[in-house]
């Protein structure tokens, strides 16, 4: 039994069976789910956080570096996917009608001092407010003055040219069929791009942090994550700023022929659920294969003792870089899927608390094992969703059959408190987590031992040739 408890594949099997059992039923069976719509959303969140947990486990669990900036990857993956889905290719010379009030001029343009903008009006769309006037400010000012003189009883529009090139959408949205990322294949391509972007960012972030270990590594990743957060919050032209990028039925891609707007998106949700499950399976196998590979062994060596690993001929820099790359890739994939689940991607995705939540999963489950990441995500994300329900006095009243005037509820803020308590108590009483890895590797099974005994070649041979 305890052997089974320490088997990653067994845990994966348990979770897969649970996810299939409680997930949405296939279209032929009427599309309901045992746990209801809310339950399906909770399961989706848990699966996505499992991907994050597996991804972060590569750096924290395998390589032994406390990374406090994983939220940057989660947010960047989400922003790449959400941005890609609302991105459109604007041909040059096309004109469209834009409400005059949505046109935004800068101070310089208003005073017409810096560059007197004559010529056609060219605008660039920003998701957080209307349209930035790129050039042609003079015409806009004239139109605004004219509107002021006539009283502006009805909203006036101005014909403008969108900024040519690949930009966030101006005016009308592209028909979904023609959108490069609107189809299943396009979405997977976009997901891959998100993964690659995040992997590249992981490597980029690895350059300054390569020599660091311990708490200096933690604090530098935290600092970088804060810079990323501030950039996401303030660069509204790229990320939507405080308002975020919103996805709707028009922009969410079709998955295997199902459209989110058809039949209340039930078939789409079914397809999406299994896409996420497949991604989780991919993350698991990817991470497990890495763990057992030569690279995984060098990570374990670095975790045990970096200097000794270096002395044993392990290319520590390369191994660490590959860990950052793999971890970032999974973070990007998970973030991209999370964008579709959330439908609104804001800078809140990049907050430090988000990173710490995923660290909590790993600490809870036991650092260094995939089963720990899976268990931590399931238990703690499930707990978080349960706490969210407990914050609602109506739900508490109905569920626990309390008196009609009961206002009993646990405030939502308690979540932070509970996570903090959990971290402190676990570190105090069970620092290795609920399902810790064995010291050394798992002991060989009886079959393996029998096979080794039968083998003619000795296990170790002096001189290198085995």
């Amino acid at each position: 039994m305890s052997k089974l408890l320490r088997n990653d594949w067994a845990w994966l099997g348990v979770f897969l069976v649970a996810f299939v059992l409680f997930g949405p039923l296939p279209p032929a069976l009427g599309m309901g789910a045992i746990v209801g719509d809310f339950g399906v959303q909770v399961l989706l969140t848990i699966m996505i956080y499992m991907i994050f947990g597996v991804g972060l486990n590569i750096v924290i669990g395998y390589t032994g570096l406390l990374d406090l900036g994983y939220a940057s990857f989660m947010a960047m993956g989400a922003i790449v996917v959400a941005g890609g889905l609302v991105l459109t290719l604007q041909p040059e010379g096309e004109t469209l009608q834009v409400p005059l009030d949505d046109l935004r001029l800068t101070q310089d343009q208003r005073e017409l001092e810096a560059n007197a903008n004559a010529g056609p009006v060219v605008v660039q769309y920003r998701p957080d407010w209307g349209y930035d006037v790129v050039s042609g400010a003079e015409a806009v000012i004239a139109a605004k003055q004219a509107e002021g003189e006539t009283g502006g009883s009805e909203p006036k529009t101005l014909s403008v040219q969108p900024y040519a090139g690949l930009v966030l959408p101006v005016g009308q949205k592209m028909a979904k069929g023609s959108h490069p990322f609107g189809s299943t294949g396009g979405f997977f391509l976009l997901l891959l791009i998100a993964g690659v972007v995040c992997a590249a960012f992981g490597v980029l972030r690895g350059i300054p942090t390569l020599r660091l270990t311990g708490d200096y590594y933690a604090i530098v990743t935290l600092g970088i994550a804060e810079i990323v957060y501030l950039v996401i919050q303030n660069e509204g032209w790229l990320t939507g700023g405080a308002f975020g990028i919103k996805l709707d039925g028009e922009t969410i891609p079709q998955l295997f022929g199902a459209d989110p707007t058809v039949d209340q998106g039930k078939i789409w949700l079914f397809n999406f659920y299994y896409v996420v499950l497949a991604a989780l399976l991919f993350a698991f196998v990817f991470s497990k294969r890495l763990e057992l590979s030569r690279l995984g062994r060098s990570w374990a060596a670095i975790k045990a003792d970096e200097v000794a690993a270096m002395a044993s001929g392990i290319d520590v820099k390369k191994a660490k870089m590959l860990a950052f790359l793999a971890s970032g890739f999974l973070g990007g994939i998970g973030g991209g899927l999370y964008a579709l689940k959330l439908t609104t991607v804001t800078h809140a995705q990049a907050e430090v608390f988000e990173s710490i939540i995923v660290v909590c999963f790993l600490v809870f489950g036991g650092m260094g094992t995939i089963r720990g990441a899976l268990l931590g995500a399931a238990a703690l994300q499930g707990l978080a969703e349960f706490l969210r329900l407990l914050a609602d006095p109506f739900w508490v009243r109905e569920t626990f059959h309390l008196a009609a005037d009961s206002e009993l509820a646990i405030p939502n803020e308690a979540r932070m408190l509970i996570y903090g308590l959990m971290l402190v108590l676990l570190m105090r009483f069970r620092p290795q987590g609920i399902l810790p890895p064995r010291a050394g590797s798992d002991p060989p099974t009886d079959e393996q031992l029998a096979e080794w005994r039968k083998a003619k070649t000795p296990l170790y041979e002096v001189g290198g040739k085995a």
Partner: protein
Amino acid sequence: MDIDWGYFLKTLCNALSEGSIYALIAVGYTMVYGIIKLINFAHGEVYMIGAMVSVWLFVEQQLPLLAVIPLSMLVCAGLGLFLDTVAYKPLRKSTRLAALITAIGMSLILQGVVQLITPNYHALPSDTTATVVGEEKVEALAEPRAGAEAVAKVRPDQARPVTDASNKEFVGVSWRIKAGTDPVTVWLPRDAVKIEQGLPDVLDRSVVGEVAFAAPAQEDVDGEPAISIFRLPLKDVLVWITAFAMMGGLHLLVQKTKIGKAMRACALDQTTASLMGVNVNRVIAFTFMVGSAMAAVAGILYSIKVGGNIFFRMGYYPGVIAFAAAVLGGIGHLKGALVGAMLLGFASSFWQGYANWGLHTLVPGSGGKDLSPYNFAFCFLVMIVVIVFRPYGLLGRAGADRA
């Protein structure tokens, strides 16, 4: 090129205040790290609680400022002792990663508790105000005497109170009874009025001195030569004096007293210190208490200087930046913490004051780009560069511990 000297001095004054506050937080990080090599993540929350407690004591309990400072120092010293005893002491023998995760956990716990107790943002009001509480309308009297005839009923509203020490049961409130009329002083029962103390006028608005400069030519108004006036607020001077007095006191404590000698001994080598008869655990607890008391002073100074934004997350950024300051100066050095904090205070304030100006001068056509929200990003960048290239800090020696 013309320089707006008034603006420059204002930025300088903000930079000094910001640096003083960071310095007071940074000494807590640097002392704790110097002895037990732990990034006390919850230190920013101690600062936050210091600010909260001082605002609560001052506004709600109406204690004078001179009583608030020692009281909230005491509360925070107790909190520091609590943190050490409950969270960190049991983990002395475990890995540093475990201690760091515990510190993060304690930080979340303190934030969560404060958020549960005070869900609303607290700000230090600049005016003393009186609000009618309990009932919707209260009869106001013309004279402070039980049974005196009522003037009018006053609604829950805010007005300036005139307290009279000779009469404990009634509070005189300058109230506008009818809209448009002059305010009259009416007397309300003491328990029907909630008085929130604000900063005394002397402290809030007083100016130590002012200097006028000729402003740059393009800012002329109506053909008259514009002047740019710099007024040095009393608040800022108070912040500087308090911070430097505290730092000086701390320096004396560490260098001249017996417990200070024990702290230095523990920072050098705990085992040897314990063999020489130093009670290491007691020294560590004392270090936590001193550091937390300093953070409490920083919290008070922040609430005097800024007056707003006092809420459960306020400790996070100053905490991380103060840690950056401690690293920048060389972790484990008190002087290093002061130097690093001043540098980061200057970096942050001058970035806020001059980043946009610099961008627009250097890059023509950069129009509406606003760089000022990136002041903390700039501080973090400084921290990262220092940790990567000079992990022992500006005043530290190479070969010292680099985590």
